[in-house]
C-alpha cells in the first residue's frame, strides 16, 4: 500500500518536473524584450538593460533555469514581473475561490450524473433515450454558452441570483451561495453529461453480471441491488471519468469566472498570459499540475477502496 502511494507520488513529481522544465524553456526562450514591455516605450535603452539585468534575463538560459529551480525547490516561485507580488502568494490568495467552484461543480456532477445514469440504465426505453440525447447535447454545447444563458435567464431577466461578483463565505453565507450557484451550475452541466453517460454504460454492464442474479435470489430488493452492489461495481470507471471532468472544470472555470466576474485563478491566468508575466505563468502551470497530480493520487486511492482486487494486489 505504502509502496503504491510512494510510486504514484514519485511519478507525480516526475510529471511536475518535466512539465516545469519544458514550460520554463518555452516561456523564457520567447520572453524576448520583456523589459521593454514592462518599462514602456519611453524608457531609455540603459534602463531597459538595467531591468534585463535585474530580472536575470541577460544570463544564459540554463543558468536562469538552475536559479529558478533552486528557488522553486524551496517553495519560492519568484515574483511577478509586473506587480512585484510573490507568485506563490498571488496564486494561493485566489486558489480557494476557484477550487470552491470546481469542487462544488464536481459534487453536483457526481450526484446528478449518477442518478441520471442509473435511471437511464434501469428504466430503459424513452427515459434512456432522453438521457442519452441530453448527454450528447450537454457535452456538445460549450460551457460558456450555458453560463451566458444562465446569466440572462436567472440574473438579468428574473433576478433570482446575483448576476456577477463574488461574496466571501465569511461575509455572508447566503450571498456567497447566491453568488456561486450559477457559476457552479454552468460548470457542472457539461460534466454531468459525461458522467451520466459513463455511469449508464457501466451500470448496464454490471447489471448483466451473474452475481446480480444471485443477489436478487437471496431476497435483496431491487433498490438495494442497484444502489449498493451495482453502483459500487460501476463506480470505478465513473470515478475515472469524474477525475477527467475535474481537470476540464479547472479549465472551464477560467471562462466562467470571467463571465461572472469572480476573482479566482482564471483572472490571474488571463492577466498573466496576455501581459507575458512569465514567472506568474510558470507558477500557474505548476499549480495546475500539482492539483492534477494530487487529484489523480486521490482517485487512485479511492479506486483501491472501491476495487478490492487493486487494493490487495498493490
Amino acid at each position, binding site marked *: 500500500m505504502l509502496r503504491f502511494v510512494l510510486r504514484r507520488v514519485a511519478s507525480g513529481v516526475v510529471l511536475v518536473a518535466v512539465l516545469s522544465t519544458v514550460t520554463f524553456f518555452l516561456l523564457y526562450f520567447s520572453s524576448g524584450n520583456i523589459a521593454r514591455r514592462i518599462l514602456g516605450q519611453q524608457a531609455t535603452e540603459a534602463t531597459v538593460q538595467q531591468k534585463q539585468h535585474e530580472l536575470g534575463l541577460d544570463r544564459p538560459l540554463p543558468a536562469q533555469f538552475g536559479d529558478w529551480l533552486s528557488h522553486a525547490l524551496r517553495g519560492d516561485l519568484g515574483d511577478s514581473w509586473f506587480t512585484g507580488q510573490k507568485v506563490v502568494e498571488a496564486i494561493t490568495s485566489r486558489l480557494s475561490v476557484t477550487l470552491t467552484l470546481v469542487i462544488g461543480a464536481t459534487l453536483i456532477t457526481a450526484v446528478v450524473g449518477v442518478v441520471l445514469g442509473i435511471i437511464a440504465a434501469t428504466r430503459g426505453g424513452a427515459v434512456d433515450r432522453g438521457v442519452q440525447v441530453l448527454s450528447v447535447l450537454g457535452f456538445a454545447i460549450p460551457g460558456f454558452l450555458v453560463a*451566458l444563458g444562465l446569466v440572462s435567464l436567472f440574473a438579468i431577466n428574473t433576478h433570482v441570483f446575483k448576476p456577477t461578483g463574488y461574496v466571501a463565505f465569511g461575509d455572508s453565507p447566503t450571498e456567497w451561495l447566491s453568488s456561486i450557484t450559477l457559476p457552479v451550475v454552468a460548470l457542472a452541466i457539461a460534466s454531468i453529461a459525461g458522467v451520466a453517460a459513463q455511469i449508464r454504460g457501466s451500470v448496464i454492464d454490471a447489471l448483466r453480471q451473474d452475481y446480480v442474479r444471485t443477489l436478487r435470489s437471496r*431476497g435483496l430488493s431491487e433498490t438495494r441491488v442497484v444502489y449498493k*452492489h451495482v453502483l*459500487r461495481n460501476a463506480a470505478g470507471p465513473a470515478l475515472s471519468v469524474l477525475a477527467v471532468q475535474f481537470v476540464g472544470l479547472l479549465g472551464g472555470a477560467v*471562462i466562467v469566472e470571467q463571465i461572472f466576474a469572480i476573482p479566482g485563478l482564471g483572472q490571474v491566468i488571463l492577466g498573466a498570459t496576455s501581459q507575458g508575466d512569465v514567472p506568474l505563468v510558470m507558477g500557474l502551470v505548476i499549480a495546475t499540475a500539482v492539483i492534477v497530480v494530487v487529484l489523480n493520487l486521490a482517485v487512485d486511492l479511492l479506486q483501491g477502496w472501491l476495487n478490492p482486487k487493486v487494493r490487495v494486489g498493490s
Partner: protein
Amino acid sequence: MTTTLSSDSVPTVATLERAAHASLFRRLLRNPTGIGSLGFLVVVVLAGAFAPLLAPHDPNKASANDILAKPGGTYLLGADGSGHDILSRLLFAIRPTIEGAALAVAVAAAIGITAGLVSGYYGKWFAGAASWVASLLMALPGIVVLLAARAVIGPSLFGTMFVFGILLSPAFYRVVHAAVAAVRQELYVDAARVAGLSDARIISRHILTVVRAPAIILAAGVAGIAIAIQAGLDFLGLGDVSRPSWGGMLTDAFTNIYTAPLQLWWPSLAIGLTCMALALLANSLRDELERSEKPKRRRRRRPAAPAAPAPAGSAAVQHEPVVPGDQPAAEPGDELLQTRALAVGYDQPDGSVTMVVHDVSLTVRRGEVHGLIGESGSGKTQTAFAIMRLLPAGGRIVAGNINVEGDDLATLSEKAMTRLRGAKIAYIPQEPMSNLDPAFTIGSQLTEPMRIVLGLSKAQAKQRALELLERVGIPDPQRTYDAYPHQVSGGMAQRVLIAGAVSCKPDLLIADEPTTALDVTVQAEVLDLLRDLQAEFGMGLLLVTHNFGVVADLCDRVSVMSAGRIVETGPVRSLFADPRHPYTKSLFAAILEDAEPRGPLVTTEAGR
C-alpha cells in the same frame, strides 16, 4: 488477397469490415439525425465559403449611427455595439472558424494516428513512451496550456489551433493504438505477414481500414471541441480582434446584454448549433457503425441461446409428456413446487417472441431431490430462472403458472416475489466465481440477506454466517468471512454460495449445475454436502444438471428435458432401468457407449 494461407475466418472478417465501412456513409444518409446534422454543416460551410457574396454589408464597416440597431431593415439581425452588421459578421466569421477547427483536427489526426499506428503495430518501448506523453498532454486543462502557449506565440488563431491539435492528439492516439493492437493479433494480418507483404502495405491495406471509421467519428468530435475552445478564447478577448469571430461577437453582445439582450442569441446559436451538429454527426456515425457490427454479433450469439423451436429428430414423436411410473404414495398438498404448462420466451426487436421453454409441468415435493436433466440448450436453466422470476433481460413467462404454497409465482407482484426469494426459494448458481460480488467481503454478502430476510442483528448474522461456513466445510471460517471473493478458490466459493443459499432456511433450493465448474475431486464433496444439507434442512431440491451420474447419485425423481419440453418424468430407479422416451434412451446410449468422461458413477449406478 492473401487469404489462402489460413482458416476460413480470414475472408469473413476482412470482407465484413470492408463492407461495413463502404456502406457506412450511405447508411448515415438514411439516419435522420445523421443527415440533418450533416446537411446543417454543409450549409454552414457553403455560407462561409460564399460569405463575400452573401453578406449584405462589409463586416468591418462600423456605422456610428447604427449602434445596436434593431433587427430588420438594412440590418437583418441588427447591428452590434460598434455599428457592425451582425449577419455579415456571422457569415464572415465562419471561414476562419472552420479553417481553425480543420487545422486542429489535421494536426491531432496526423500526430495521433501516426503515433498510434507505430505503437500499435510495433509496440515495445515506443508504445510505453507514447502513452506516457499522451497522459502528460492530457493531464493539464487544455485552456490553461493554450493560455500559457499564447504567452509564447501571441494571439494567432492558427498558432493556437496548431497547439490545440497537439493537445488533442492523444484522443486519436488512444483509439488508433487500441484498434491496431487488437487487429494486429488477427489471423489475416498474420497471414499477410507470412505471405511476405511489407509492413507498409499491411498497414495501409489492412490496418488503416479498421482505423478509418473510429478516426472519422473522433474527427467530428474534435472539430466540435476546437470550435468551442476557439470561441471561448475569442470571447475572452484573447483571439485576433481585428477580424470578426463568433466568440468576439459574443463578448460584444454580453457587454450590451442589458440594452440589447436579443443580440446574445445570434452568435450563441451559431456556436451552439455548429457544435451540436458535429456532436450529433459523430454520434449517429457511431450508432450506424455499431448497428453494422450487431448482426455479426447476433449471428454468433444466437445458436448459443436455447431457442431451437424444432425438436431434434426423435422428440417429434410426441409422447405423453409425463410418464407416471411408480409414484411413491403422494399425498395431495405434499407438493412444494408445481409448474403447469410453463412457457418462457424472449421478446425480439421485431416484435416476435422466441420460445425457449414450452409447456413444462414439473412437480417437486417437500424433501424431495428432483433432477432436471437435459443437454445444454434444452431449456432447463431457463425453467429454473423462470421459477425464481430471474430471467435475463427480454425474457418473460409467456404462459402457465408456478404454484408455491398457494401463490402463483407467474403473476405475483415483484414486491411479494422479493419477499419469497431467499426465504422460500433459494438458488445455487453454476459458476462460483462470477456469482459473488467482487466488491464486498464474503462475510458481508452472507450477512446482508440474513439481516433483511430473517431480521437478524449484525452480531447474530455474523454468528450464523460463521456457523454456516463451518457447516459447509470451510476450514477457517473467520478467514473466509473476512476475505474477498477473488481470494478464495472456486470450490470454496461454491461452498460459500451454498451456505448463502441455505442461510435463510428456504423450503426449496434450486441448484443450477452446481458442480459443473468445479474440479472432479471437489465435485463429489460438494454433492455430498448438498445431499447432507438437503436432508438436514428438509428442503426440496431442484437439481439442474446434464450429468446422469449426478442424478443417479442424488435424486429421488428426475425429469428429462429436450428442446424446451419435458419428455419424461419418473423415479430415478425406474427411469434408469426402463427409459421410455426415445430421447432418454438416446441419452443413455450416448453415455454408456462412451463411458470415459464421468464413467464410474454412471456405469455402477446404471448397471445395478
